[in-house]
């Protein structure tokens, strides 16, 4: 039987600065009608380039499709001229694409209805009024309430999630045979992401459309995909049904990926097993197996013979590996790695058990309002209450997780604590001193005791300074070293501490990889020997295999140096893994505080419950049995919070009294506090 779409031996390269980057190197895969196929890989694995090449959407030059076939309904799409009518009919017509950035994919000066109509008129040759009717129907279908009116709205009048819904409507508008979703939900919050994925699945199932999910998130894939292709360094390393890949992975890379991510249903003390090293530079890709340098199972054969081809390892299950370790070998190796790191951690840290000491930071009724001004004279008309009456405390040596969706104020809290903002009201007691109102001048000597690790490791390192100068800045500024020799020694020490070779210290930030840059950021944070470090989404921009390296590094450093972390993240699995206690925020307020165990196993606040339900678990068997109640609607803007409890408009438990008063954060026992009048 021929497939709906079949890609054979696709090779794509980019010529950059005189180097040839083999972005896609001999990729073959197929998609059948009505199935959901996932292409999983880290950044630079070639997963998106593969999809764009199918439609000849890569910029050429520098891109070039070297060879391969893309058979779609019997025609080879690569043979068509990029500007031909036939190919245009396929693009956006028979094959729809949803991009990652809903902000930039919609034209801001056209109403969404108009944009939908355009493609309907173009591809389906509908009349204006027919197109309008169909546009409204499509919007209704993707869950836009009040579609008759909203069709006349401009993109900026919709939230990010809504915009992505519109993108789905647009991609589905011409009844495509295949829908390609390129990281379509990555930029969205978990609850929105869950809503959209459910929507996508329902739509393709009901219309028998094939869906290609391109993603780096294995969790997303587990619940939705029928079949999975795992890509690494421009090639497919393993393919099979979703259950095969998760239950019986055969390629060491796939196994590595699965071990590197924390899961909601993990045992708490599981040590993440990162994949050591970095993906290869695709302009100098070796002819041998590309994963070999990072592979624990490599043999002499791997180093000599050309890259292994995909070979069947079961019905519909293929892997590209000479060794093909068995499940026992995989777990044996993992145990060995865990044991090794445990002993080394034990040696390094005499304090094995985390001991939390006295309160190091106390946040009391913190309020951070930003004025909304109007007119020429900047008259203040109202306040944006980004952080409204937040209280919690942090004890020495513990990790506090701060979670919530975008716009909930978690970063603002962190910045207020670090006094990057001047808090509107409240107290921040750090080392026994209220710093909330301290003038900048008196704050400076305190700076060395607190540090921040940024999300974007690239923009947080001054591009004009060498790594050594960046890491050494706190040393110089606070005069922590007496001599040049001591300074150099300390820099080397810091580099080694974060797992970087000191020889690299004369390099500039752009010469490091993403993971290495984040290590530099951590080294800088550690330079002044702070006891309190804020990690603001410190790992969310990193690839899965690198993420695990950094999480482990942070944990090791904590054990070794007795650090206290405020760990801000939107990834609840990671927060669960690393935190001792967790603070959940919603629209500027704390809704729940508890130790990690009570919070994850017995969440009390309906919002926490909803958040946890939305987190995907990378295991199709668990996902099958999991009842997911996904909250509907979007997070309202902080500017117009609902009266009373801010969650009341989305809460399944909400009654009239919820809209009448703001529920206070009440202690319900055992260090567990909840802000909900329905919970006692």
């Amino acid at each position, binding site marked *: 039987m021929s497939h709906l779409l079949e890609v054979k031996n696709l090779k794509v390269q980019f010529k950059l*600065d005189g180097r040839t980057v083999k972005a896609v190197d001999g990729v073959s895969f197929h998609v059948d009608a009505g199935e959901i196929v996932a292409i999983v890989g880290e950044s630079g694995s070639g997963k998106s380039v593969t999809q764009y090449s199918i439609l000849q959407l890569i910029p050429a030059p520098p891109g070039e499709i070297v060879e391969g076939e893309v058979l779609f309904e019997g025609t080879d799409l690569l043979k068509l001229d990029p500007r031909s009518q036939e190919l245009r009919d396929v693009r956006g017509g028979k094959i729809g694409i949803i991009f990652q950035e809903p902000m930039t994919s919609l034209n801001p000066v056209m109403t969404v209805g108009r944009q939908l109509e355009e493609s309907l008129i173009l591809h389906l040759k509908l009349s204006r009024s027919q197109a309008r009717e169909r546009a409204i129907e499509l919007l209704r279908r993707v869950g836009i309430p009040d579609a008759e009116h909203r069709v006349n709205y401009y993109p900026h009048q919709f939230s990010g999630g809504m915009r992505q819904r519109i993108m789905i409507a647009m991609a589905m508008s011409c009844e495509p045979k295949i829908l390609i979703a390129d990281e379509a939900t990555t930029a969205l919050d978990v609850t929105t992401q869950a809503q959209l994925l459910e929507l996508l699945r329902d739509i393709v199932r009901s219309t028998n459309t094939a869906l290609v999910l391109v993603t780096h998130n294995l969790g997303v894939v587990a619940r939705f995909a029928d079949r999975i292709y795992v890509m690494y360094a421009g090639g497919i390393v393993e393919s099979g049904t979703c259950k095969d890949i998760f239950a019986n992975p055969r390629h060491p890379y796939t196994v590595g990926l699965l071990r590197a991510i924390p899961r909601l249903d993990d045992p708490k003390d599981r040590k993440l097993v*990162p994949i*050591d*090293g*970095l993906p290869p*530079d695709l302009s100098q890709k070796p002819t041998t197996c590309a994963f070999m*340098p990072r592979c624990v199972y490599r043999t002499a054969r791997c180093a000599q013979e050309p890259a292994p081809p995909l070979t069947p390892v079961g019905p519909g299950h293929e892997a590209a590996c000479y060794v093909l370790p068995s499940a026992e070998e995989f777990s044996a190796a993992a145990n060995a*790695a865990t044991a*090794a*790191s445990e002993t*080394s*951690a034990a*040696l*390094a840290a005499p304090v094995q058990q985390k001991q939390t000491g006295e309160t190091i930071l106390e946040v009391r009724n913190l309020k951070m309002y930003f004025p909304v001004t109007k007119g020429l004279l900047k008259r203040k008309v109202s306040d944006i209450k980004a952080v409204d009456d937040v209280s919690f405390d942090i004890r020495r040596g513990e990790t506090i997780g701060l979670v919530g969706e975008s716009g909930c104020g978690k970063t603002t809290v962190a910045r207020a604590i*670090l006094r*990057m903002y001047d808090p509107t009201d409240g107290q921040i007691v750090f080392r026994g001193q209220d710093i909330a109102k301290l003038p900048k001048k008196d704050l*400076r*000597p305190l*700076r*060395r005791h*607190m*540090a*921040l690790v*940024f999300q*974007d490791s690239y*923009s*947080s*390192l*001054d*591009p*004009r*300074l*060498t790594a050594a100068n*960046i890491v050494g*800045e*706190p040393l110089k*500024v*606070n005069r922590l070293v007496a001599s040049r020799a001591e300074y150099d020694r300390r820099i080397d020490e810091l580099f*080694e501490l974060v*797992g*970087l*070779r000191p*020889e*690299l210290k*004369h*390099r*500039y930030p*752009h*010469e490091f*990889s993403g*993971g*290495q840059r984040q290590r530099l950021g951590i080294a*800088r944070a550690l*330079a*002044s020997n702070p006891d309190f470090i804020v990690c603001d989404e410190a790992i969310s921009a990193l690839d899965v295999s690198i993420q695990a*390296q950094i999480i*482990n*590094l942070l944990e090791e450093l904590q054990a070794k140096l007795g650090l206290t972390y405020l760990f801000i993240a939107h990834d609840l699995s990671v927060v669960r893994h690393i935190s001792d206690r967790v603070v959940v925020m919603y629209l500027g307020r704390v809704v729940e505080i508890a130790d990690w165990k009570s919070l994850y196993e017995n969440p009390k606040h309906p919002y926490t419950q909803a958040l946890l339900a939305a987190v995907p678990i990378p295991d199709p068997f668990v996902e099958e049995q999991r009842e997911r109640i996904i909250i509907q609607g979007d997070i309202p803007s902080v500017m117009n919070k609902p009266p009373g409890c801010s969650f009341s408009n989305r809460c399944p438990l909400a009654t009239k009294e919820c809209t009448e008063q703001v529920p206070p954060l009440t202690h319900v026992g055992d260090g567990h506090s909840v802000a909900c009048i329905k919970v006692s």
Partner: protein
Amino acid sequence: MEMQTTLEEPVSTAVARPRRGRKFIQVFLDRKAILVGSLILLVMVVLAVFAPYIAPYSPYQQDLDHTLAPPSWQHLLGTDLFGRDELSRIIFGTRASLMVGVVSVAIAGGVGIALGLMAGYLGGIIDSLIMRIMDALMAIPPIILALSIGSALGGGLKDVMISLGIALIPIYARLMRGQVLSVREADYVIAGELSGSSNLRNMLVHVLPNCVSPLIVLITLNLGVAILAEAALSFLGLGMAPPGAAWGSMINDGYPYMRTNPLLSFAPGVAVMLVVVAFNLVGDALRDALDPKLRGSV
């Protein structure tokens, strides 16, 4: 502790990496354009310094029998209205013109960049105060501003340089402030603040170096503007007093004879062009050599 996470180096470090200074010079020299640019500037400087030894005649020596002479072996570029040797005047003019260009742009750039840096970084009242003054200055056409300042100061060449410098300040302040506003939001500036750096240190270490690229371009362009502005001012009676030689005034003096003796305007014009092109080439190279990202790819 054996760090299990120590990373393999993606690029070989077998080759010793040149230290920063060496690399800077290397990039600078690796480009032919830079070589040409620096060579022109070098020649100009030599001409300016050793003018009396190089120039065939004195720039003031009049030969009223041979006025407006066409190029000949005696006078390679011909003579002007008073029979003075055009070539010698250009060579001597290098002194005044280079000085006007460099000094006035140095004043404008130095003051403008400092003001823009303060306005952008410190914000608030300081920002409003500085920028409103700049707006006021900008409202007056630069040449008229320079004219009034220059005549108030006295009108010599020195006064022209100062007045031109002041007249050009607002352009630098504005551009710099815009740059600073975008750079100061960068995480690395915040990181500097968080590590306890003073405002001054942050401005000089993090903000200034990351703002300079467009300013270098502006500086190289403005050198030509300043040299020509000197001509305009000298036409109005400021700056180089008549027998003195400066390119700008020579271009001006040549205008009436454009049909018969085009070289009188053309030759000093070429000199101005050469200087501007040379500064441009060197400026571009300087910009790239200062940027660690470009250093690798040059």
